[in-house]
């Protein structure tokens, strides 16, 4: 009988939405689920996870785990998996999650698949789908190992918005001692109050054709509560920080609305945004490949279109 362990992470002071989506997925699949929550202040979120269906909530609330995310987190997750008896471990397919999943799998000789869009559980059989080759193909994979580690994209299932917190069955897990051969010395955050690319409902993305408009685009993003993304050349030109690169080797985003400004539409960029619900492209070249994936295309100059967006888009944002 299958059992899921959801690896929940914190977004600022709250448990992440994808963890709640994963619990909703477990319920929908008729599979019991436990959760593990790691990080400072994790204990305060246990009742929320229980309210969303976690039978047991493993907690590692210790600043030691901040010391080195992958090395110590994977050990904590393996310990929780042992105690829970879960055979399916779900992790958010963030940059951290995609590095963590194979570390966990490597420790317990489990199979691992990163970046899955769907998961199907049928008795002991687990199959997943994911995009590969810069999203040009989709592959369907099957696990042969007893324990399966899966990192999943946002939107695995609709989270239960009406769920109320409930007293959790809490189990504490001690953090391993920091490993001097593997030490996180410093964490550098870019100073921004803006919503993170991964969580944003709207992303405004800057291409080489909009490099002169970076200030205005930042302003637009602030006006409408959007995150800013960019193509690789714009990052290389130093106009936007590294962690905002969207594409095959950058971030993969799936907001409700993705606005591509002056972006040609290379497959290496499209690979990072094709899963957006709605794509708007602004490009002065009607032949630009970005229009092939756009729901709405504006053939025009960014310099002319941007002021209109700044004036009028904001009227629709609550």
């Amino acid at each position, binding site marked *: 009988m299958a059992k899921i362990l959801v690896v929940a992470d914190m977004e600022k002071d709250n448990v992440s939405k994808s963890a709640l989506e994963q619990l909703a997925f477990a319920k929908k699949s008729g599979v019991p689920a436990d959760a593990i929550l790691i990080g400072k202040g994790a204990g305060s979120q246990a009742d929320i996870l229980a309210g969303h269906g976690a039978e047991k909530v493993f907690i590692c609330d210790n600043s030691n785990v901040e010391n080195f995310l992958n090395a110590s987190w994977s050990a904590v997750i393996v310990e929780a998996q042992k105690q829970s008896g879960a055979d399916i471990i779900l992790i958010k397919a963030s940059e951290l999650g995609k590095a963590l999943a194979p570390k966990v799998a490597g420790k317990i000789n489990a199979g691992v698949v990163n970046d899955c869009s769907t998961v199907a559980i049928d008795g002991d059989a687990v199959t997943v789908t994911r995009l590969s080759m810069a999203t040009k193909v989709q592959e369907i994979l099957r696990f042969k190992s007893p324990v399966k580690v899966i990192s999943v994209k946002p939107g695995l299932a609709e989270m239960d918005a009406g769920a109320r917190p409930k007293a959790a069955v809490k189990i504490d897990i001690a953090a391993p001692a920091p490993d001097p051969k593997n030490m996180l010395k410093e964490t550098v955050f870019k100073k921004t109050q803006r919503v993170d690319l991964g969580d944003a409902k709207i992303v405004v993305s800057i291409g080489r054709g909009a490099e002169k408009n970076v200030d205005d685009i930042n302003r637009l993003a602030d006006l409408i509560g959007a995150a800013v993304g960019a193509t690789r050349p714009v990052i290389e030109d130093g106009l936007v920080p590294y962690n905002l690169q969207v594409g095959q080797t950058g971030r993969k985003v799936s907001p409700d*609305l993705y606005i591509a400004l002056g972006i040609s539409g290379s497959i290496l960029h499209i690979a990072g945004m094709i899963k957006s619900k709605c794509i708007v492209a602004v490009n002065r070249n009607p032949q630009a490949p970005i229009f092939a994936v756009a729901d709405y295309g504006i053939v025009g100059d960014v310099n002319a279109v941007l002021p209109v967006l700044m004036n009028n888009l904001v009227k629709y944002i609550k």
Partner: protein
Amino acid sequence: MNIVVFIKQTVDVEQKIRVKENGKILEKGLGYVISACDECAIEEAVRIKEKNRDASVTLVCMGPTSAKKTIRRGLSLGADKAIHLLNGAYNSNDATANARIFASVLKTIPFDIVFLGKQAQDTDMQATAEILSEMLGLPMASNCVKVDIRADKAVVHRQADRHLELIELGKPCVISVNNDINNPRYPSLKSILTARIKPVVSKKPTDFGLGEDEIGRAGSLIERIKYETPQARAAGKIFEGDAAEITNKVIELLATEARVIG
């Protein structure tokens, strides 16, 4: 100092890729390249070598006979020698089987630093470097955008989702690199020519002590059922004309038709 770089030859994802009715990729006519992050890993290793006279860079490439091209390319970037793991029938490894083979190779050659690309450009999976580090019990960092090798440790910058992490790894260690870490050089004619005479030894994945059931399909924990062509996005509405007019039209449609704002 010995640096080992694992490299992969992958299908060039910028070309048209078709899925056949039997769920396999139509391979006829496909072009192959060195996986982008792997090329950056070689470049990074060569830059370290250029700063450390005693350093040597060994490439390990698992792939068919045709992967020779990728190996020569890597050597022309400045690596010293290479091991070609001819996978032959064992060409359906998952990340675990790959890592197991790489770990067995590393038990037979000296190394201080192991580099891999963050992800292969064909699978986009990202798992081999992490599993390899677990199998060897070595410190590792994923997705690095800066590497600084000191006497007793490696200081790396790892790109996370919202932040950068400065991590110190004791040597020996495993480092996976993002393609943003550097811009690989264009090899000169001279380096292309000297690459031809650099030593390349051909080996089989079973030459390092592993049994046949530990590699290939038998040794893999993941099996591909098939490939599919992803669902194409529905054709969009493309507007030309007065910028203000068409922009306002699109804003209206975002609210009334797509319902993603308002």
